[in-house]
């Protein structure tokens, strides 16, 4: 395997007061430059895993290494290495996209000049140059998703965690987002993508892991998984691994 971007070993996690583990003995290796999909039904543990990987939730059992650095040590400088696009809109609604980028860019460690250059570039890519000075609160859901993505990548992270980045957006915005993510990956950024959108995962990911009830139940390239389990599409494969019962 190529050089590892992310290495997870024996990670277990439970929320305070919870008897059963939310995540049990997770082991994953993601190589640099990979487009990795993390799929699973509701409540499977995807968002919890994302939160742990981005340092939002502390963990005790197991080890997570980001480009060889143990994240348990809570070294804030490691946060420069990754970008995060959370499921919820993570910016100031009362500010414009430009103002949000100026602020989050500074917090990501960029200089004033770098922020200016990168903001203009990203606003152009996400098609929001014309409305760069309008408060984000006035934007549609799709526009907000694009702003959410742009802020997450403003500092050109080496690895990008995406938690349901296209939820609730129209086809145009989704296409734009997926297309940009591919470009980003082509330029060397590792993608860790979590979603319910199986068709998106098929389009985007080289390799997928399926997670259910806190455990990794499948982890391979999509073509290998399909041929190994004799399925024609990801949806059939998904139901095979996770069953048909409701998980809400």
């Amino acid at each position, binding site marked *: 395997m190529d050089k590892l971007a992310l290495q997870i070993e024996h990670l277990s996690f439970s929320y305070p007061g919870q008897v059963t583990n939310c995540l049990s003995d997770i082991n994953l290796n993601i190589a640099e430059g990979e487009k990795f999909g993390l799929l699973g039904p509701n409540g499977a543990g995807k968002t919890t895993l994302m939160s742990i990987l*981005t*340092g*939002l939730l*502390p963990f005790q059992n197991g080890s997570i290494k980001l480009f060889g650095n143990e994240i348990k040590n809570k070294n*804030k*400088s*490691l*946060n*420069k290495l*990754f970008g*995060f696009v*959370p499921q*919820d*809109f*993570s*910016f*100031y609604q*009362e*500010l414009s996209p430009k*103002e949000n980028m*100026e*602020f*989050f*860019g*500074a*917090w*990501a*460690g960029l*200089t*004033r000049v770098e922020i200016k250059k990168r903001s203009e570039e990203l606003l152009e890519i996400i098609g929001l140059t014309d409305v760069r000075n309008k*408060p984000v609160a006035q934007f549609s859901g799709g526009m907000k998703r694009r702003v959410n993505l742009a*802020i*997450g990548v403003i500092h050109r992270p080496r690895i990008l965690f995406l938690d349901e980045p296209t939820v609730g957006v129209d086809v145009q915005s989704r296409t734009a987002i997926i297309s940009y993510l591919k470009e980003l990956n082509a330029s060397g950024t590792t993608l860790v993508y979590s979603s319910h959108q199986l068709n998106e995962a098929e389009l985007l990911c080289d390799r997928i892991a399926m997670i259910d009830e806190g455990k990794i139940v499948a982890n391979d390239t999509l073509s290998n998984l399909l041929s190994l389990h004799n399925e024609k599409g990801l949806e059939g494969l998904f139901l095979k691994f996770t069953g048909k019962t409701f998980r809400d």
Partner: protein
Amino acid sequence: MYKLWATFIKDLRVLSRDRVGLTLMFVMPIILVIVITSLQASTFELVNENKIQLIVCNKDAGELGKQFIHGIFNAGLSNIADVSKELTQDQVSNIMHEKDALIAIIIPVDFSSKILEKATGVSSKALTNMGVEGAVSEYTIGESVTLFYNPVLQKSYLQSINGALLSALQLVESKQILNSIYFSLNETKIPEALEQDILTNRIKINEIPVSKNGSKSIPNATQHNIPAWTIFAMFFVVTSLGSNVVKEKLSGSFVRLKTLPTNYLLSLLSKQITYIAVCLLQVVVIFSIGVGVFPLIGLPALNLPSDLFSLFIVSLCCGWCAVSYAICIGVFAQSQEQANGFGAVSIVILAALGGILVPSFAMPNSFHMLMQLSPLHWCLESYYELFLEGGAFSDVFKNIFPVICITLVIQILTLIKLKKIQII
């Protein structure tokens, strides 16, 4: 440094778009300070210039009733309305309601005759005691002067009215006794000049406010109210800042902040700088209104202390304390409702304990300990030291020191909580 600057700009932008917060922080205190000062100034005027109307029902047919009324007028109760002497007590009280008058007096029918009888009796007793022979005449005290008052009248003001009436009454009685003694000794009427010398040329009371800088300016409602309500306004930033901290904490933006390579303390530092600037701006705006606008609307102008450096330091420390308190509330609160509700109510309680709503000297002893725990008390004392007592920085420091200590305690509590919930 650029991170801090960018955060400060972000906070300013967010604040400038929070119209409700800005209204609460600037417009409301301005309205409050104008309304409270106007009310207090008119109360001071009412009490000090005795503008309350006095209804007089003089049933006395003699001259002394008229002299008594004249004495009341001279004692300062200049707004006198005479009503018919035929009125009963009930009718007088009805007129009070009709005219919305707060006080009325009824001078009894035998007022003059009884005072004259007393004057003759007292002078005969006095002359007998002095060895001048003569028959001692007996006298009885006449019917009382009846004072009606509206129960809304404050006790202190009623006492001041009572004092004026007693003073006028005493003057009438003393004059008659003096006349009677003089007539008994000389069998002529006392010369008017002598009567004036004895009765009216009294030693005056010279009132001098004692201030540390030797200034003899008389404190007014503005000097009391503007510093007090400015402090209240500063602490009221809790409604904007406290809920702003909670809002950020609960919003998606906070998730992103935690994943970026910058400590959240920077955000709190920026908020402190932003809101301390807001507090200082509140001070400038409210004090400017006191100096420039108050005289235009008929209120006494605010006299700024001569030591402007101390004024700046006091304002800075008060602002820092107010902002620290607001952040602490925001960090501990679980929702914006909690921050707004607890924040606002706690400020009103601390203001009451601190002497903003009720003068601290009027507090019961049992509250003195609690009063000293209120940062608003120490802030107010610091401002009063400058505005009313003309103190210098050394005088102010003894009050500012507790403000700084309370602020540090609040900051430590905030840091402990942030550490506990793993935000820093």
